[in-house]
């Protein structure tokens, strides 16, 4: 069996929905031992579409199946004293606790960091929340669209003359989940060196606000407020329609671009003009240039231009549909999509490793757990509760 990078890191996962589960998925997929604590009704993501064949079933949510690979699941009612007691005994055996409840919840359960640290002084406790654990908006609610708005990405996204537009689905949550996984390992690195635990506060709003360009610094450097860009902004990497889809015909960055080569490549002699042949000139004549690009690409085939451009070392990009993504020869060569066999979903292709490590492979050793799949193993074998006690736990709705 290959060594996994995070072998030996024990994670108690109290998360639900997306940001927290993505954080603990990253940890689990690289080898951490992740124990997912679900409320007796299950993580709400189990009820999130899309489902396999549209069958609404807690074991058939495709997003849940993706987000919870390599984890074990137990159910536990944290609103009962016994449930809290059981949880605390699991805290004793863990390196990390990750949660993404609203900021007041853990404290209301008597599970604030101070209390947990008394049980386990080397515990790293990572909390992910909409706006962080402090500050005037800490109790504000949010959905992904609200995080886009409050993180500064929304205002600059979309058409110049329409309402701002967010990315599809749940990008803000994924960003925060990734950041939380990084920050957790920073704290774990310190814990492994010194034995000292600590608290990690991750804000989804700040995860969005750290990933911007030309927004805040446009104001601090020039006083300008950047708006959603008009179609003809002089940015040659903008999306253009082709005859069969869309592409981003970026000829190159900065000094690396030889304009004459591009003019020849596009067979458009009118571009060989002082109006366009330097970055500064292109910005000054952005509207005219944008129109020429639009008129040209609408008659082209996207993949033909994409491959031809890369022979000239231009950095064209192609907009791929989900079907095209899954047939992408690059992904195929890298075995990005992996087959995972799940007891209810059967074998499906999942997005795989976000990056590759030569010495410690990413692997999908286990599918997402069914609800409470590991109750007996964890509560019985690990914590030593008898079968009778487990029946009693179940009867009193503790698990």
């Amino acid at each position, binding site marked *: 069996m290959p060594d996994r990078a995070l072998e030996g890191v024990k994670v108690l996962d109290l998360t639900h929905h997306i940001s927290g589960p993505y954080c603990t998925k990253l940890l689990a997929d690289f080898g951490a031992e992740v124990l997912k604590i679900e409320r007796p009704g299950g993580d709400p993501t189990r009820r999130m579409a899309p489902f396999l064949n549209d069958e609404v079933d807690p074991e058939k949510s495709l997003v849940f199946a993706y987000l919870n690979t390599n984890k074990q699941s137990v159910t536990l009612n944290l609103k009962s004293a016994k449930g809290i007691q059981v949880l605390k005994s699991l805290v004793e055996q863990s390196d990390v606790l990750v949660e993404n409840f609203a900021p007041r919840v853990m404290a209301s359960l008597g599970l604030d960091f101070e209390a947990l640290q008394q049980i386990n002084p080397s515990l790293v406790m990572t909390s992910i929340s909409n706006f962080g654990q402090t500050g005037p908006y800490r109790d504000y609610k949010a959905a992904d669209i609200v995080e886009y708005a409050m993180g500064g990405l929304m205002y600059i996204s979309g058409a110049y003359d329409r309402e701002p537009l967010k990315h599809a689905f749940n990008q803000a949550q994924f*960003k925060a989940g990734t950041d939380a*996984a990084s920050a957790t390992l920073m704290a774990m690195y310190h814990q492994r060196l010194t034995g000292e635990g600590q608290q990690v506060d991750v804000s989804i709003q700040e995860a969005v606000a750290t990933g911007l360009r030309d927004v805040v610094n446009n104001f601090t450097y020039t006083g300008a407020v950047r708006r959603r860009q008009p179609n003809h902004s002089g940015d040659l990497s903008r999306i253009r329609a082709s005859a069969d889809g869309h592409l981003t015909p970026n000829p190159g960055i900065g000094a690396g671009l030889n304009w004459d080569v591009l003019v020849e490549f596009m067979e458009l002699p009118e571009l060989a003009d002082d109006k366009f042949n330097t970055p500064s000139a292109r910005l000054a004549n952005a509207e005219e240039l944008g129109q020429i690009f639009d008129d040209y690409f609408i008659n082209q085939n996207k993949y033909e231009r994409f491959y031809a451009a*890369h022979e000239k070392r231009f950095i064209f990009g192609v907009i791929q549909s989900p079907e095209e993504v899954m047939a992408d020869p690059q992904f195929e060569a890298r075995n990005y999509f992996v087959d995972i066999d799940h007891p209810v979903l059967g074998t499906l292709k999942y997005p795989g490793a976000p990056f590759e490590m030569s010495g410690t492979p990413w692997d999908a050793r286990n599918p997402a757990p069914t609800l409470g799949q590991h109750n007996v193993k964890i509560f019985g074998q690990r914590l030593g509760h008898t079968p009778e006690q487990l029946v009693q736990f179940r009867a009193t709705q503790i698990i």
Partner: protein
Amino acid sequence: MPGPLEGVRIIEMGQLIAIPFAMKMLADMGAQVIRLESTGRLESYRADSVYQNDVSGEFWNKGANFYEQNRNKLGVTLDLSKPEGLQILKDLVSVADVFSENFTPRVIKNFGLEYEDLKKIKPDIIMVSSTGYGFYGPWANFGATGPATEGAAGLAYQTGYLGGEPVMAEIPYTDYTSGEHTVFAVMTALMHRLRTGEGQFVDISQTQATSSTIPEILMDFSANGRTGPRMGNQDSVMSPQGCYPCRGDDRWLTMAVATDEEWQAVCRVLGQDGWASDSRFEDSLSRWQNRDELDALIGPVTSSWDAHELMHALQKEGVAAGAVLDSKDLLFDPHLVERDFYEVLSHQDSTGIPPLPYASRPWKLSKTPAVKGKAAPLMGEHNSLILSELLGKTTGDVAALEEAGIIGYGPSDPRPVRRPSLDEQVRQGRMQRYETDFEEQVRRAFPG
């Protein structure tokens, strides 16, 4: 106080965002990051978006995005096309923990800087390569920027207005997505090395990292063979969810309503008793089915509200709502300011740039916080320091290296990008407005 990564040394051969952003985050947390640059091939962020759009003098030390992505790093220039330059890089690797770069594999192979090469110099080195499509495979040598990988990953295809064409972010969005994964990857490799003493090669595909964040799209296709429509700002379950106009020029509010209680609160706050009792909107399913009608009703009502006032009013009643913050709102946002999200960094006097606030990090570690921030290096600022302290070069050696053009303090071909005037940028629509007293506003809010 040292950050948690004190003692980790990183040699960075980065450009633009993907690697520089990730290494900045590690530098913030205490790693020593030595950023290598070429004087012959000027990093474009050094030469663009300069302070006050003033490209006179040493403009290469005034670029906004260079400062944004390179704080807390040490700066060394090296001409890698000369054998002595390349040797210095290898000497630095021999005393480093991590080597990171984001060039195409072709460039790295030409320099002889692949993992197998570096491993001979430093057996436990961690090498991190970030490329558009991954270090091997038929597209490995295809150069890419954010838009290319946002398109390749499948994210852009699904994003767009209802019934409209694909839309992508107007920033190199996937540089950040992959950069965030790069921070995690480096930490994962460091954890492994701490336990085993082993280094390894980390191959980051910016496309793969991005595709890993859209299971809603890719799993639906994989399992059901389905490609859903572009949904604009609408959600697949919640309604209303959208971005609605508010009072003023280009002001907006977002909200997302999940439950009946929240919907009743929206009706109350907006003073719309009729909506509250309208059977078309009585439960979440009917609201979702009639979501287009609902959106059409809400916009005209919100447009008389101030976006921030409406946000606070709705949040007070338990509704997820947020004003759409423009760059100025974001900078002065009272919540972010209260959380010390912005960090004021001083610049070298020679740049003429006053102390300025920069976005910090999305995490706070209670016991091992970030190091005290230092602005990005001037070009070649730490040439002497690094060459003498780390590699034992004498003052004479350093002078000889400068003489030979191996190191330098400015670009060999200084050409800035000249931006049109702000008036022209407003006319073209790139900027919504500009404020001439911005320096005073920034100084007042962030006295440093």
